[in-house]
């Protein structure tokens, strides 16, 4: 995270670190005494750990099920074998083989752009079988029917030397994996796994992210394959068959999806057990199969959860991507330079109600920092303008030529009865629905030609009516995730942990902390979102949206499901955002007093048309609006009906033309 060391969570050496030191000493003692066979088994375990980590990345991080991973490992192995046969010098064979596998994996991932879930899994199974039968079983070596031989280069010829080489390969992949988890790309994988729509709304290019996951998984698999080829000194089709693929799936599931430590333990178990049982070796895969059948139903967190409990790593950020700690760990001072707010340092759970009133004391400075270089030369007064927007769903006209305008600095309300088309209108803005006709511009850019994630990265950020968060992740992880499009570093830089990457990540963290504090959820930062009450989840989503640094924030029923107290608090927060951060807001809301309190202009939709527009007072007096809400002739127009407060506090009067 921040470049400087953070104080460790525990006091003194933990049980885990003691065990690790003990294991190190044991290995150090036994290593010179190990038999060649034990060294072979240990090297094999290392190879299979890398292969399992490759599937863990794809399935556990990015949520893309692959039932043909052994085929990718096989491609790495065959590539190295072929390169070695072409007399390519040793370390280069591994690098080129891994590169070739990375490229093939990206190709294998192409169907994921079109199909997902179980259908995708079926194509990977077919791919695995095809690769085994068609590619690996080809007569590669004219002199031998059983695959190709791969002579070990002198550097890794001895058993001990080879073991160290395998260990080095494993360490390389572990370091890569650890770096990946700390980058915006690692977080994007998880977002794609848990909620594709949220990922896109937060500026994550979903398709590209999937391909990236395939490519990186291919990189690991290629490394594993190269090591495998040199370990066996031969490649043949029966090593990389469909059963091996399924064994990798078993290891990842039994280890706990997305838990790199669980994946390693499971890989060691699945690989080592048959060797330990020797004469009863057939019982080992049986045991593995029974485990696989039972784990998803009985014990879905897998071995990783056990390891995490037994050997906790310092700080939640070092955990596998999957499991944020359920309880906030004791923390040292917040990272990030010069805490903008005195008082944050001593925050403890339960004591931090956000400061009331006009937002004094809220660390908005961090959030206000200039974000994205605008690629626009002309300052615009109109942020969002929609004209003649029509949407049809299967012949039903849902939106009928709607118009809407949000100017810089405005808070615009969008109200209307259920089914009026409010959320559909939002979906047009954020790119989930393509209108049949009409134009939508944002800062004079044609919005409709841009994909969802590109809209978010221009500063058009939305929230969802059903909270759009990754429920399995912590509050902090979600708020970091929301800042994806603010990151300016690439994948390679991120994997190398370049200094600028660390700086940017520290910035993202302090933005996240500021946004969480603004929304009063800072003390929940390490809680899993799914464990929070609904009202808090909404605040977390808002914190994410704020951290993403929007110029225009689209809020879909932000007060839904909140009690009046919470709603009043939310209204305060929104006013703070508007005043302090200069955000413009477009708010869908049923709760009319809420709208009247914060909005200075309101559009009323009914049955896909704009029924009325104007200041909250004007809307209140409009008889058509009242009848749309309450049924025709239900009440005398507006008077004392409680439909709108007599004078909305936040109403700022009629919209004036010009800036």
């Amino acid at each position, binding site marked *: 995270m921040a470049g400087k060391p953070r104080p460790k969570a525990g006091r003194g050496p933990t049980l885990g670190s003691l065990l690790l030191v003990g294991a190190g000493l044991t290995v150090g003692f036994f290593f010179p005494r190990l038999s060649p066979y034990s060294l072979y088994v240990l090297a094999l375990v290392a190879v299979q750990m890398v292969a399992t980590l490759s599937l863990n990345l794809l399935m556990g991080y990015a949520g893309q099920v692959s039932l043909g991973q052994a085929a990718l490992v096989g491609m790495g192995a065959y590539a190295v074998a072929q390169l070695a046969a072409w007399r390519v010098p040793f370390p280069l064979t591994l690098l080129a083989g891994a590169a070739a596998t990375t490229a093939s994996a990206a190709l294998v991932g192409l169907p994921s752009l*079109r199909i997902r879930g179980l259908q995708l899994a079926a*194509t990977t199974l077919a*791919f695995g*079988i095809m690769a085994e*039968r068609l590619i690996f079983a080809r007569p590669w070596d004219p002199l031998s029917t059983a695959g190709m031989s791969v002579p070990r280069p002198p550097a890794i010829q001895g058993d001990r030397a080879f073991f160290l080489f395998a260990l080095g390969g494993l360490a390389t992949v572990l370091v890569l994996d650890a770096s990946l988890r700390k980058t915006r790309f690692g977080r994007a994988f998880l977002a794609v796994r848990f909620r594709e729509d949220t990922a896109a709304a937060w500026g994550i290019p979903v398709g590209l992210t999937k391909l990236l996951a395939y490519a990186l998984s291919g990189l690991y698999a290629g490394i594993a394959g190269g090591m495998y080829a040199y370990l066996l000194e031969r490649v043949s089709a029966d090593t990389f068959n469909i059963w091996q693929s399924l064994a990798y799936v078993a290891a990842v599931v039994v280890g706990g999806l997305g838990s790199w430590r669980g994946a390693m333990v499971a890989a060691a178990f699945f690989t080592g057990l048959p060797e330990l049982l020797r004469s009863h070796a057939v019982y080992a895969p*049986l045991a*593995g199969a029974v485990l696989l059948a039972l*784990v998803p139903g009985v014990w879905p967190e897998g071995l990783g959860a056990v390891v995490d409990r037994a050997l906790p790593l310092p700080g939640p950020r070092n955990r596998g991507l999957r499991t944020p700690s359920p309880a906030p760990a004791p923390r040292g001072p917040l990272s990030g330079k010069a805490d903008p707010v005195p008082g944050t340092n001593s925050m403890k759970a339960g004591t931090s109600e956000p400061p009331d009133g006009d937002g004094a004391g809220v660390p908005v400075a961090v959030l206000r920092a200039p974000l994205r270089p605008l690629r626009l030369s002309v300052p615009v007064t109109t942020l969002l303008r929609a004209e003649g927007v029509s949407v049809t769903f299967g012949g039903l006209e849902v939106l009928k030529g709607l118009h809407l305008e949000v100017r810089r600095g405005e808070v615009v309300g969008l109200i209307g009865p259920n089914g009026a088309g409010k959320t559909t209108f939002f979906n047009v803005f954020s790119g989930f629905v393509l209108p049949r006709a009409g134009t939508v511009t944002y800062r004079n850019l044609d919005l409709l030609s841009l994909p969802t994630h590109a809209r978010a990265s221009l500063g058009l950020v939305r929230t969802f009516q059903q909270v759009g968060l990754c429920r399995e992740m912590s509050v902090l992880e979600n708020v970091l995730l929301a800042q994806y499009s603010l990151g300016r570093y690439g994948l390679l830089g991120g994997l190398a942990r370049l200094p600028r990457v660390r700086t940017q990540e520290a910035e993202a963290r302090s933005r996240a902390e500021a946004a969480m504090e603004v929304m009063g959820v800072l003390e929940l930062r390490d809680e899993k979102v799914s464990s929070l009450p609904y009202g808090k989840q909404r605040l977390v989503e808002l914190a994410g949206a704020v951290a993403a640094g929007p110029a225009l924030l689209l809020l879909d029923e932000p007060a839904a499901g909140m009690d009046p107290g919470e709603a009043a608090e939310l209204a305060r927060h929104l006013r703070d955002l508007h005043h302090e951060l200069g955000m413009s807001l477009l708010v869908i809301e049923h709760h009319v007093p809420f709208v009247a309190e914060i909005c200075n202009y309101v559009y009323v939709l009914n049955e896909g048309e704009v029924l009325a527009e104007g200041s909250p007072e004007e809307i209140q007096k409009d008889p058509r609006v009242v009848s749309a809400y309450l049924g025709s002739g239900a009440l005398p127009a507006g008077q004392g009906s409680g439909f709108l407060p007599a004078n909305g506090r936040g109403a700022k009067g009629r919209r004036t033309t010009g800036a």
Partner: protein
Amino acid sequence: MISYLVLGLLTGSAYALLALAFVLVYKGTRIFNLAQGEIGGIGLYVAWSLTSSLPVPLASLAGIAVSALLGLLLERTVVRRVVDRTPLAGLAATLGVALTLAYLEGLVWKFNIKTYPPLFGLGSVQLAGVTVTYSRLAALGAAAAVGAGLALFLSRTRFGLAVRAATSDQALARASGVRVDLVRSVVWALAGGVSGLVAILLAVVYTFHPLSNTFILVRAMAAALVGGMTSLTGALLGGIAVGLVESLVVWTTGVGGAMDTAVFLLILLVLLLRPGGILGGRQA
């Protein structure tokens, strides 16, 4: 050419039946049941053991019953725990079941390749100049009969209605008095029985070994996907299509591996062009 067509039709109808069972389970529990093939495999092995002491048709029926019971048992134990979790949980658990069953087959009956005795003696008839054994003919007939029977059962009976209700909206089905748990059990038992039949039909024509039924399942899955996963007619037609394509590919190229490639390309093509399958609904 004709003989390849006949062979394709025969294996295709077996794939179609297994695809039917697969789709039935998917509709009933939203689980991609990777164990569907091996549930039949266990029945096949039991039937094979019984053929030494019972007439072959009777032993086969007993094997089918074992498969149905196994399906029921699995639904009550493993499936019930994963049915409301993520799709991956169901996939992983049934994969574990498939491997467990395959290893059990290997441990109990050895891992070698076996042949199944002919169902109805060794006689044969001439059809369009092609020799077709009684067993193959019977297999074709059984496939057609069971397929038609299942389709009628699901479309014309109250239980069929209950299955469709339980799969389209569980809560609503429960509220209207459909016993969703019972429906699930019956679906799994039914599918188990059908896969037992398929395993035996194919064992009569080809050889079998532990896991051979999972290879068959891959083709049935292809058929189900091509047919759209939720359409029973689609699954039937898809199964016959896969059988024919496979047979034609072997005929034109003579390469066994090309078969898998063809199946892979077929799945890929259909899914990419029509993610919902040929006859599937709008939801993929």
